[in-house]
């Protein structure tokens, strides 16, 4: 196994050994383009990330975030364009506010807010996309699995 892969697997060995599930909403104009670029560059990424394409991060509502957690995800993150670069002018700004609101909601019921995060990047910046994916993976792996009632 190459060193990068080793580094990935080491990261997924959580204390309880169970594989985490992370749902990721990628905006079509920037994040998903950066994801494709990372793919073409054959960058090795953790398998916990489940990508969902949306036209713009502005499309993601608190319902999507909480439902993802409720239905088995241990973490959710949204990746969109840099501030001021949004293809639809301000979709990413709406997403930033909704993520902040969702994190406040989680905190009020005792769930770790780091389970929901947002990252911004430009379409050509695949390194930033990779860093975001790995950071999210590391954060969620360090948290216990999300119990559900």
């Amino acid at each position, binding site marked *: 196994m190459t060193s990068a892969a080793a580094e990935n697997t080491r990261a997924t060995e959580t204390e309880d050994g169970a594989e985490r599930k992370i749902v990721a909403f990628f905006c079509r104009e920037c994040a998903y383009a950066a994801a494709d670029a990372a793919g073409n560059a054959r960058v090795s990424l953790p398998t916990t990330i489940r990508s969902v394409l949306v036209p713009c991060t502005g499309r993601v509502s608190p319902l999507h975030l909480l*439902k993802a957690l409720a239905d088995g995800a241990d973490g959710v993150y949204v990746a969109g364009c840099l501030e001021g670069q949004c293809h639809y002018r301000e979709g990413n700004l709406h997403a930033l506010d909704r993520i902040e609101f969702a994190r406040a909601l989680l905190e009020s019921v005792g769930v770790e807010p780091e389970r929901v995060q947002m990252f911004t990047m430009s379409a050509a910046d695949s390194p930033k996309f990779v860093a975001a994916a790995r950071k999210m993976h590391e954060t969620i792996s360090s948290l216990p699995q999300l119990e559900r009632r």
Partner: protein
Amino acid sequence: MRCGVFLCECGGNISGVLDLDSLADSARTQDGVVSISRNQFMCGTEGRRMIEQAVEERGLDRIVIGACSRRFQGPTFERITRELRLGENAVAFGNLREGCSFIHRDEPAKAQLKAEKIVAAAVARARFQSDLPRGRTFLHRSVLVVGGGIAGITAAEELSGAGIDVHLIEREQSLGGYMARLSKTFPTEDCAMCSLAPQLTGAALDPRIRIHTLTDVTEISGPPGEFRVKLRQRPRFVSEACVGCDDCTSACPVSVSSEFELGVANRKAISRPFANAVPSLYAIDKRGSSPCKSACPAGTSAQGYVALVAEGRFDEAYRVASELNPFASVCGRICTHPCESACARGEVDQPLAIAALKRFVADRVGPETVLEKVPVIHSEKVAIIGAGPAGLTCARDLAKLGYQTTVFEALPVAGGMLKVGIPDYRLPKDVLRREIDQVTALGVELELGQRAGKDFTIDELLENGYRAVFLAVGLQKSSEVEVPGAELEGTERAVEFLRRLNLGKPISVGDRVVVIGGGDVALDAARSTIRLQRISGREPNVTLVYRRTREEMPALGEDVEHAIEEGLKIEFLVASLEIVGEKGRVSALKLQRCKLGETDSSGRRRPVPIEGDVTEIEADSVVLAIGQDIVCDFLEGCEDVSVEKGQIQIDRDTLMTGKSAVFAGGDAAATGGWTAIEAIAAGTRAARSIHNYLRGEKLLEVWPAKVAEARPSAEELARREVGQRVPAPLLDRSERRGSWDEVVGGYSEAEAIAEASRCLACAVCSECEACVRACPAGAIELDQQEEIEELAVGAIIVATGHKEFDARRKIPLGFGRFSNVVTQSQLARLLAPSGPTAGELERPSDGTVPKKIFMLQCVGSRDCTSSGNEHCSAICCLFATLHASLIKQHYPDADVTIGYTDLRAPGKAHEEYYRLVQERGVRYVRSRTGEVMGEPDGSLRVRFEDTVTRRKNEELFDLVVLSAGLEASAGTTEIAHVAGLQQGSAGFIKEYHPKLKPVDTQRAGIFVAGTAQGPKNIPDTIAQAKAAAARVVSMLSAGFVLTPAQVASSDLAQCIGCGICESICPQSAVTLSGGDSPHAIIDANSCRGCGICVAECPSGAMTLGGFSDEEILAEVMV
């Protein structure tokens, strides 16, 4: 749902990592999946046939593609489902390549598990995908081409050939753009204008192309195919009647640096950039009102007569100076000149001596001007009370309008305060007399010694024949002052004192005189007293006391200085408490020391007494000069005219008093300040208002509309040489001892011309109307206004070109510091046969032909410092090579060196041309230049390191040419903002896709061509222009365009009309319907499918085509 899953091996990219068979097995378990197929390349023809066959045989209504990223092959499969009548939204995608096999090659087991989840998610999503309705928009067969350079013109002609109407928009006054400035083009060295001129005339004659010059696009809205565009056309001030005879440019006195000639030559305010400009009309560069003109109460165009004086054309200058002001010589001496305090030159060094120039012109031309009587054409007679500046100006203007006017003056002499208020050392009698005679010469009758209210009454005038009266009585007495002891013997009122002096009455002054007050009247009283003391052989002893400080003194700064030179003593910050008297005569003046407090209503800081700090000055006579008041005799027999606080009450717009047909103005009814120029302006306004009143309709503007002020920018001011005002000659102190001769002398001709040429020509055209008089075709229309026009067009092409990198930002290279450092474009103008030097290479400093020339490449390009751009500007190497070749052919013994980084000659025949020019003896040195240093004789020492031999060269050159790179033009940045286009590095318009869609932008229906999209030479620019035209033709040829599928839509039943979606939509595509149960209406053309409103909709009525909540949650929950 009957769904077919199609897995792609992608030539091993996917099958190399994932086991597609086990993937197929797991997919089979998903309910709704009825067929699974697999192929090496699903996106190929074989894959397509496989899908068609499966749909046919198994009756599929949904398809899942397990292959590469949807961004890559999405459109291919959507097209297949559309053609199979299943609709574009019948296909769902699982990204097995970039989303799985590529990024998990090292963990095949985990990748396999994830792949199964990816396919399952796609199947789950497909279950909720429904067909999406698409409407149609009918397209306008017309196009807006922004930018009249070679790119714009080529695209316009291409499109008109395809039968599409073109609106060609150009910011400047003529088409041609950057190419019109070139002399020759590379690599063929054929003349630029020879290839451009036919295109220009072609565009001009083409009926389908409508050319809009001096026009900006201010607004673009609406969907592609139906763009609504708002245009703003700036006025040209020249009508179609212009035949291009060029007489106007020799008449125009204003000369500024020509934008077309890139600073190598000047142009006049009225000009045409180049001979075969299209349209061939001239245009006037009129940027509004110059600061001096806006500041003058009478609205005289100071810049107008100053420009004419600078050219020695004094008669025309006098015409402009005296047009609105009959007292040009008088004002040249005593005006408070607000124009000078507004003068922009003041920010560079000192304001222009505008008043002195006005005096010079009036003194020189005035006396020779003989005015004849103006024939009376109106029956109404007008009476004017008071022969001061206001009254006489009003009389003159009315006389010129053809009225019979009579001026009644109470005093035995005419001139008002000008005559009896200002002593001869500031305003000689003969100067005032001459200008008054010029007023009466027009036919104005003057009745002296006639006091209204005593010798006649206003009512009597109105009864016998006068149809209008203008009260211009001024403020002819000192205002009452409550200083105790004011009635003691030895006290004097300044106004009365000066009147007796100027009427030549006998007058005596004390030995120790104190004057109270800080205005002109106080100063004149003091300086006259000094002269009277000296004439009677006594040492001057006059002290002026003033409550505030020097800055707040209303009197003019230079007059205060002259007074001090003549021996006046001034005590500041002292208020007069009491005039002390002995045996009925004045003996001293008790003064209260103050300091300055808060600013009061007059905008000046109020003097606040300092407790107990009182002093006393001995004096045998005290002159009170604290303001003037109105003499109200005229009120006798003139009801309904009210006077409050010394001012006749008037209606500000019509200047009419309470009594109809009776107007008032000047000091007695001030609308601005209490100065001579304000009075003159009031006279002009009154004449216009009386004319409107007598004619019964508003023919003339009493208060002309304020025009925007034009000031040079901060950089322009910073670039100006710091100089000094030409001082006016002064009578030296000794001669002023006891004489009434004029203290300030007038300019000589040379001094006047030197001072006048310091003018910065702020508004460029100064409205001196020399061109109006010179134009044989009468084509000049100075009152043209800006026009707004709205159009509807189907598509837009942006061809706004580029601008040259400002080489000033490379400080060590000395551009802008040394005149012999020029840029390649400036060199093109110097080499152009139609250029300012008719093709002769004359270097700017001394016009000699340079023998040793150094050209420096990559100025501002391929530069990672903050003062440059990173991109290579593509054309500079060939541009320099072209000019070097032209110079060598024209001047065989010239020694041309080109210092290059990498000589790039990529185009067709460029490399051959490069070798040819080397053979012509041009020396190419691969080098990096450190600094360009100026030598006293204008030659330039260039220090450049030869990067091949690693030797440091330092050589002397006669001319240095900088190959400055290309940047986005101001027009490009502006249209990008208006049309909402993304700009890439250095501001160039970002194309939709560098390879696949080079002339599209990210907004449908808007295309880009030429250097607006990036640096390129002329052939590539023309190729892009034709490509953009082809894109427009293909877009408009369908006649209609399908409204996009992925748009928001609202369920009428669920929508509660809360309006949240309307307020947050960034494209303002949602509007709330009216009525009692409002609901959201979405304009499918404007909606761009971002989904912000869907996520925010509280009632869940809003959804997005292809990305409904169900479809998204389906993928999330797998």
